[in-house]
């Protein structure tokens, strides 16, 4: 019995002693951390996705406190709402940034882009891209093995089985940049969400000569330049037989969509009747021009005194 008593007394004494020592040590060697770091971290989404360029949310909080300003630091997942809270904690003005979303710049579905060989290796875009130019005639387009879907932390992407192309669910996409970094063919790109959530982009990255590109894929941009010619805002750039729309300059007039010969300029979330209206207007304009020309021709013939002939 006495053994039990002694044991309890000894252990209790040791415990108390240790507690006292630990108390003073913790006071003496306490690490002074800016309390704001914890606060900032609490408002961050805690996804540790790395979309901000920092290794994780804690690192982002540290970076924010160290920098003391927000011009270069932005959490794409939390967006402006979270950044506003962060700014409040720091007691500074919030910097508003346009929200971005990932877009897939390839429309080469199974139907549009025929397979020329069968890839039977490990299902990984990275491996396939390292091995050869791909299982279709297009050496630039989507390989369809879904590395981007694998890497997405937000379940914002899936592979469309009918087309073989990835699809971005824009409500879930946080523009963390993970898929953009992962894609070996550089098909994915972050794009400003745009006014009314509408955005215009060319869904092709094929830089081959026009005829070669079209041979491989029915919707490949062949560099016909009709979009470039019609754009009034200088927003379209032609390079290596490929059109690229600068989202900063694009005013969403929709003229380019109307004239694209392969119908491969995507107008996300733009109501179809709006595009149809642009086409209608163009047809009307063309009809007017045709009539005008016809009148002029008739007039010229009258002046010459030659017999009037209806145009064939």
């Amino acid at each position, binding site marked *: 019995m006495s053994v039990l008593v002694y044991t309890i007394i000894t252990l209790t004494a040791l415990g108390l002693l240790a507690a006292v020592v630990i108390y003073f040590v913790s006071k003496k060697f306490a690490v002074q951390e800016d309390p704001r770091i914890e606060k900032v971290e609490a408002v961050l989404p805690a996804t540790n996705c790395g979309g901000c360029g920092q290794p994780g949310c804690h690192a982002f909080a540290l970076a924010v406190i160290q920098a003391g300003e927000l011009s270069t630091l932005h959490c794409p997942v939390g967006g402006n709402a979270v950044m506003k809270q962060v700014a409040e904690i720091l007691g500074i003005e919030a910097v508003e940034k346009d929200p971005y979303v990932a877009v897939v710049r390839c429309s080469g579905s199974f139907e549009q882009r025929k397979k020329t060989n069968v890839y039977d290796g*490990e299902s990984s875009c990275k491996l396939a891209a390292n*091995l*050869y*130019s791909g299982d279709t005639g297009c*050496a630039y387009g989507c390989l369809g093995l879904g590395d981007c879907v694998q890497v997405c932390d937000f379940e914002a992407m899936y592979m469309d089985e009918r087309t073989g192309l990835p699809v971005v669910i824009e409500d879930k996409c946080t523009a963390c940049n993970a898929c953009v970094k992962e894609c070996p063919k550089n098909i994915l790109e972050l794009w400003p969400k745009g006014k009314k959530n509408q955005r215009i982009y060319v869904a092709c990255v094929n830089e081959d000569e026009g005829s*070669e590109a079209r041979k491989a894929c029915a919707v490949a941009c062949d560099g016909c330049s009709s979009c470039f010619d019609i754009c009034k805002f200088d927003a379209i750039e032609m390079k290596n037989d490929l059109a690229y729309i600068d989202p900063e300059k694009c005013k969403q007039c929709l003229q380019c969509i109307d004239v694209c010969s392969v119908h491969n300029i995507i107008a996300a979330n733009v109501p179809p009747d709006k595009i149809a209206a642009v086409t209608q207007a163009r047809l009307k304009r063309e009809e007017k021009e045709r009539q005008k020309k016809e009148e002029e021709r008739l007039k010229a013939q009258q002046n010459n005194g030659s017999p009037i002939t209806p145009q064939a």
Partner: protein
Amino acid sequence: MAARLHHKLKSFRLGGVHPNDMKLTAHVSIEPLPLPAFVTIPVIQHIGAPAKINVQVGDTVKVGQIIAAHEGFVSSNIHASVSGTVTGIHNAMDSSGFKHTAIDIQRDGDLWDESIDRSDTLITDIRLNQKEIVSRIMEMGVVGMGGAAFPSHVKLSVPEGKHVDHLIINGVECEPYLTADHRLMLEKPKELIVGIRILMKALGVDKAIIGIENNKADAIELLDKLVQHEPGITVEALEVQYPQGSEKQLIQALLDREVPSGGLPSDVGVIVHNVGTTVAIYEAVQKNKPLIERVVTVSGKEVRRPSNFMVRLGTPVIDLLVAAGGIPDHTGKIVSGGPMMGKAIADLNVPVAKGMSGILLIPEDESKRAESYNCVHCGKCIEVCPMGLEPYQLLLLSKKGNKERAKEEHILDCIECGSCAFVCPSNRPILDYIRLGKTQVRKLKKA
């Protein structure tokens, strides 16, 4: 023939595997393939910078005329392999699986450049001096014909401060099925020996060893007899073990020297040339003949007429397949190179290039990749790796994109022999990931 059986044969020390050697065409003589109707000649068929095109669409060219000139030292001249008209310059798929600039020539007759000696007479007298030999080889566009296609003149220009004392002629041909070098050793042995003499003169060495795997007894016997009167040249039979024909393994087997990590054979005083290259060098130096044709083995279990063809470079692969009796039913893959290191071709019109030693037709049941499972850590890949690496770990590091660690684990020392993937009981795509890792690490270096 049995002379080589009484003592233990030389071999490399570490790892290695024993695939079934399947040399179906070992007794089939080299046969010239009928001239193709048109050729597609890529301007990059070698390691180094692409050659610069110096013809235009519509030009007429003769056989042996330079159509693309080397750019810089590590590059190679490209010659017209047929005479005719240049019909196009465009991007075309080649056996690497990627598209590169290529020159199309529509053949018209067979008109050779006058400077080329087309006779069969053997010229043993080497008139050119050391420097002239190297510049002639460079001019004639000779590159390593064993597969890697490294420009031969670069190998022969030993950097100052390095002393080379041995020349090794690689007649191992350890890849199953392939017999291009074997047939050359049997059919052009005298040319081969003059070629070796030329290389010895260019390097200033007095010792040369021809290394041949012991499954080519006829070639060993023939060359052994011929080198009796050639001071300094010896023939060495080697154990049949894959990858005996890899440069570093061959040096270790023959001379017991180890090329340091990231180093070159010249660091240990050795230069290695392949048999096919040596014959091409003989032709370039003695006959003024550029590298415009090569021996290609067309083989496979179900191929009707497995053959060794002498083919003009740029000939579409389909021509070779037709000459070998067509594509058998149930062919799963058509591979350029051997079954261990070769690469499936994605298009039947890819042209024969300087480094293409064989075309294999693999039946569907063998070509399909088996389902891959998790690593069971059996360590077999480590056991067979001839470079002493840990392939399973390199796979994981490449998969995770951990380039720094992969580099520390010497991923760049991998010779891509494929022994690890060959033995893996879980069918893991080890080599695929290591190749990816190597690409990533090389990019890291550049950045």
